[in-house]
């Protein structure tokens, strides 16, 4: 997927990939991150 120029809502998961990690990845691919959150489901 081409992320450059896209706007992203990053919802991470504690036991998987957290929000901050998603943010770092998509930013490095040129996306603009509008919202970041990490959820915990237990």
């Amino acid at each position, binding site marked *: 997927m081409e992320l450059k120029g896209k706007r992203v809502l990053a919802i991470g998961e*504690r*036991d998987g990939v*957290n929000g901050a*990690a998603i943010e770092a990845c998509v930013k490095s691919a040129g996306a603009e991150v509008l919202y970041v959150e990490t959820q915990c*489901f*237990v």
Partner: protein
Amino acid sequence: MGFPVITSVANVLAHVPGLVRYGSKPLRDLAQEPARMDDIARHLRSYEDAVAYGPNQAFLGNIEPETLRTVPRPWFNAPDRGAPSEGAFGDLIGEAELLGLLKLCDRARLVQMDEATLAAAAKGLVGRRMAAAAEMEALKPAAADAIRRAVESGEAIPLWHGDRVVGSMARGHEADEALTANVLLENLAGKATGVLALRRLLAQVDGRLGPDDIEFVVAGSEEAVGDRYQRGGGNIGKAIAEDAGLRRATGFDVKAFCASTLYAVFNAAALIQAGTFSRVAVVAGGSLAKLGMKYRAHVAKQMPILEDVLAGVAVLLERDGGDGPRVRLDTLGLHTIASGSSQQAIVQELVMGPLAKAGCTLTEVDRYATEMHNPEVTEPAGSGDVPLGNYRLIGALGALKGHIPRTGVDAFIAAHGLPGYAPTQGHIASAVCYLAHAARAMRAGTMRRALFMAKGSLFLGRMTEMSDGVSFLVEA
């Protein structure tokens, strides 16, 4: 002096289908769509089904968690009808008993209960030696119509047993959001299950120790007791100690999300190691907010709502506890601010940290207790098998470090991991629920060493984006 000894551990459960509606998720949904209560009611389990449920039997210590590997899934379709509600580590009490405990623990006189429920509670709790007949007889039943009037006034919420309203929980203030009836019910449920666990702990050491022999109590629950000027002000530890009869003790709380109770254990051990006290109890009551957390998925998949139990744990640590299992305070694994929040970073700190301090390899630890959530609860909602995910990460990191071969992760999990069996009561599921099993095995000479690790989702409180965690080794 060696490290402090874990001399007794209690694990208790309370089956509370009538309180599922007050769990955070059901409560929010029912406010929007009251008709959902029909779905919830149709999928609630009977007490007999909760007792016969394998994971609950594992929690109570009547079977080892590993035994669940031999039971076909879904476990709720493989009940053991001969299983007792009395457990090796504590009992699974019924809803009337829990409601009676709420009344017993209600120092603020906000709970009303009908006579029949109090009588059933007394019969059960006295029979289990969890309450004295005199203290149950001293509880005054609600006057005729008082429960209905309290609920209709809007100042109280109803307490259900089956399809009947049998009691009520009143608010503590007319305008304080920290003292609403729902908040107070959550706090009182945590207190009552903590009292149940601590009373069970006392029953286990009866004859050797009495309530006056315990000097300090550290609570590691997840509720937030307080009023509008100090939400979460706390010290439910002292409140639990009072109603468990520990007249010479005082205490405090440790708060760190799901890692709270494990933090409490190492704090208690450190207080003993420092020479401050010779006996400290750790206690944690159940989380009402987490009842029915995944009920929508359970209803959608036509299965019982499995998040229908409150859990409680109590642990006694002593300076002169003989040859029992010891908390290796020299192996603490701590997630520091510099550690980073990736799962790899957390496991590096919490597993490899203690192993390095103890000079052990991965396979020299008999069992790893992580977040022991029952996968049957979490998988239908898409949250996966939490303990298995932890074990894969531990195994992978062990392979990277050369402790096991790269092809040896599954074998490592089979030999050193456990199936999840704990209800989704975060701070109790997070490793501490395995202390009783490990202590029993170490006393029996079948286990030498276990690692306990818990993680805390600090970011949920919006004060930081960090995670957290704590771990340590327990050794025979």
